[in-house]
């Protein structure tokens, strides 16, 4: 079996989720009732039998570290391989690398030592359930140098504007990488390269003053390298703004979206918490809602997502909202089109109503 090592590169990911990313990086934002954004990238790797995973973190990575621990939840706390969280802490006076090449350069050791022939690099913003062994299979079949993953989207959402698009010939060879907003071939920020080639490309890229490995080391070599495009056809959501976060969260209430992410044999793992089952009191009315454990519900909830340990008081009404961990909604409060970050408290009788296309975001630990 060919072995793959994984890199989750957060270096270029901007924290565009407003209040949700004031104190944490995008990869650490809670998602889908009990996960964090990064759980999808890590679980995809773990399920694809990737046993060494490096996380290139740049800033606001504290809650990420807390969450990932040593990769325990993904069975990645191993003696051979395992998970390595790599914040920027390097001290090589001869280092001339820039941008994410700093990470690649200072962590070359990870690449050298990894018990792997291939490297799979992924970001954290493309939520999906993908088997990278299938990517590798295709990569080898067409004998590519680099294989990039993309999705042919049905509808052009605003969040795709920040993504690269691929131009592809009839053999699925990539002939162009650009930002044309009308293109439906959305690059999913995942690529596979042979380890030796990767190391070679990194070194060249640094020598030429590059600061963005994918752009300067791969895209710039479109003519020289055989870059193959692998089409991912499953459930996919790109989350890089509050709007895309909200819309894609709400979409999880549709059975096919939900099943596409959670319904197959490759489960999404996350750090385990000890919470009792959720409790629905006689006064509760809950429909079309995802509920994590540890909630106590006495009010009315519809078309919403409740994270762990949320309390909804009697007579409270929650609609089209996302309520994160341990929030407390007191009796008779009304929330509609709202995102509450962790540990918020909404006083009895208060009303908060956001716009359907622009939800109202309440930052962590706020009492209102």
């Amino acid at each position, binding site marked *: 079996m060919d072995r793959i090592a994984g890199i989750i590169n957060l270096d270029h990911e901007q924290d565009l989720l407003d209040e949700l990313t004031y104190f944490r990086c995008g990869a650490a934002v809670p998602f*889908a*009732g*009990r996960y964090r954004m990064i759980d999808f990238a890590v679980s995809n790797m773990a399920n694809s039998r990737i046993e060494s995973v490096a996380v290139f973190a740049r800033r606001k990575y504290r809650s990420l570290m807390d969450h990932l621990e040593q990769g325990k*939840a993904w069975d990645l706390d191993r003696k051979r391989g395992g998970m390595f969280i790599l914040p920027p802490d390097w001290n090589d006076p001869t280092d001339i690398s820039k941008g994410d090449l700093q990470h690649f350069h200072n962590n070359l050791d990870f690449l050298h030592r990894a018990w792997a022939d291939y490297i799979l690099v992924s970001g954290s913003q493309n939520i999906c359930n993908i088997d990278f062994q299938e990517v590798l299979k295709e990569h080898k079949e067409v004998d590519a140098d680099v294989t990039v993953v993309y999705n042919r989207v049905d509808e052009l959402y605003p969040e795709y504007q920040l993504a690269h698009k691929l131009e592809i010939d009839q053999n699925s060879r990539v002939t162009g990488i650009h930002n044309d907003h009308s293109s439906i071939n959305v690059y999913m920020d995942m690529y596979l390269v042979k380890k030796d080639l990767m190391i070679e490309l990194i070194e060249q890229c640094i020598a030429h003053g590059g600061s963005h490995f994918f752009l300067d080391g791969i895209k710039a070599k479109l003519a020289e390298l055989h870059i193959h495009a692998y089409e991912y056809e499953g459930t996919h959501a790109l989350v890089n703004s509050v709007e895309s976060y909200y819309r894609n969260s709400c979409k999880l*209430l549709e059975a096919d979206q*939900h099943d596409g992410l*959670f319904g197959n044999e490759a*489960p*999404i*793992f*996350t750090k*385990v*918490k*000890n919470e*009792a*089952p*959720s*409790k*629905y*009191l*006689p006064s*509760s009315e*809950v*429909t*079309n*809602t*995802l*509920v*994590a*454990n*540890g909630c*106590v519900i006495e009010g009315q909830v519809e078309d919403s*997502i*409740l994270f762990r340990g949320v309390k909804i008081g009697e007579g409270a009404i929650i609609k089209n909202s996302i309520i994160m961990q341990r929030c407390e909604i007191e009796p008779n409060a009304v929330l509609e089109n709202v995102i509450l970050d962790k540990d918020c408290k909404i006083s009895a009788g208060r009303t908060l109503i956001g716009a359907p296309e622009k939800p109202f975001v309440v930052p962590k630990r706020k009492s209102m």
Partner: protein
Amino acid sequence: MKNKECVAMLLAGGQGTRLKSLTKRVAKPAVYFGGKYRIIDFPLSNCTNSGIDTVGVLTQYEPLILNDYIGIGSPWDLDRKYGGVSVLPPFMQSDGGGWYTGTANAIYRNLQFLNQYEPEHVLILSGDHIYKMDYSEMLEHHKESGADCTISVIEVPWEEANRFGIMNANEQGRITEFDEKPEHPKSNLASMGVYIFRGDVLKQYLIEDAENENSSHDFGKDIIPALLRDYKKMMAYRFDGYWKDVGTVDSLWEANMDLLKKDPDLNLNDGEWRIYSKNPNQPPQYLAPTAKVKNALINEGCRIHGTVDTSIIFYGVQVSDSSVVKDSVIMPDVKIGKNVTINRAIISKGTVIEDGAVIGDPTPGSEITLVAEEGSVLASNYVNT
């Protein structure tokens, strides 16, 4: 390494025959409870929360699932370098060996395990009860009184006292008499099956008991009476929280229903006294637009399209459109088809209920229906009325 002040020995070998097919493949301590837990989670979590970090779990009957479940104790924070949890099945030795013949015999055969920690006190627990208890307070009481043995007791209704082991104690709490299921109880203080012994006293009596050919090697029948006969100092420790023996299908059902009260006597959401358990990895529960859920405990991984009323739903359960689950306990991974009606039932793990099935008797006070045919697809006319 230093010796341990107190080591717990948890008797988990019971078959629990009165739980019928629920214990066909698992020992009683592994039986499910409360939407998420197994019975043994309670004594194990009590140990952790009481600061007792060394626990021997004595298994005998169908230990495979229990073994696997306990592992090295990580869910209960009992994966310790020195101490932690050890599973102790019966074993063969160069001079023979064999099955455990009684509760006392099980501990006696593991004296070697106990000796390695040289415990000053030994806490004997059973894996059969649902309760939250701070054993460290009982240990304090035991140490302060200078007792050879302290037995935890709970007040039971006088009319039920004849079903328990009843302690008669004097004003100082010293036990003067022990009646196993007395016809005419002199007290309503029942033994909870939680004992703390001085380590040396326990060892001495276990060895003496082992040599006694007429003994049934049981704590209640042999060891406690022997200590009493010798005027050892035996103290009663009163416990007044929630405590329930879930030894029958009806009592298991009742204990589950107890959790649905608005402020249940057994609070599972208490951050200061967590009940730990192994957490399966499941997505959040989904309540569909058609779902009607009232008065229920529901775990992750469930999909509810029908009606759930006054019920406990474990992880991975599916309740399809137009089905009604009422006054019932649905164990993990049960798939309930459409137009199913379930009343006053316990459905055991992994059962598939076909469309249109009608299960259980809705009459209040009627017997609880247990559905536990292994891997069964239920015929649509399985009715137990």
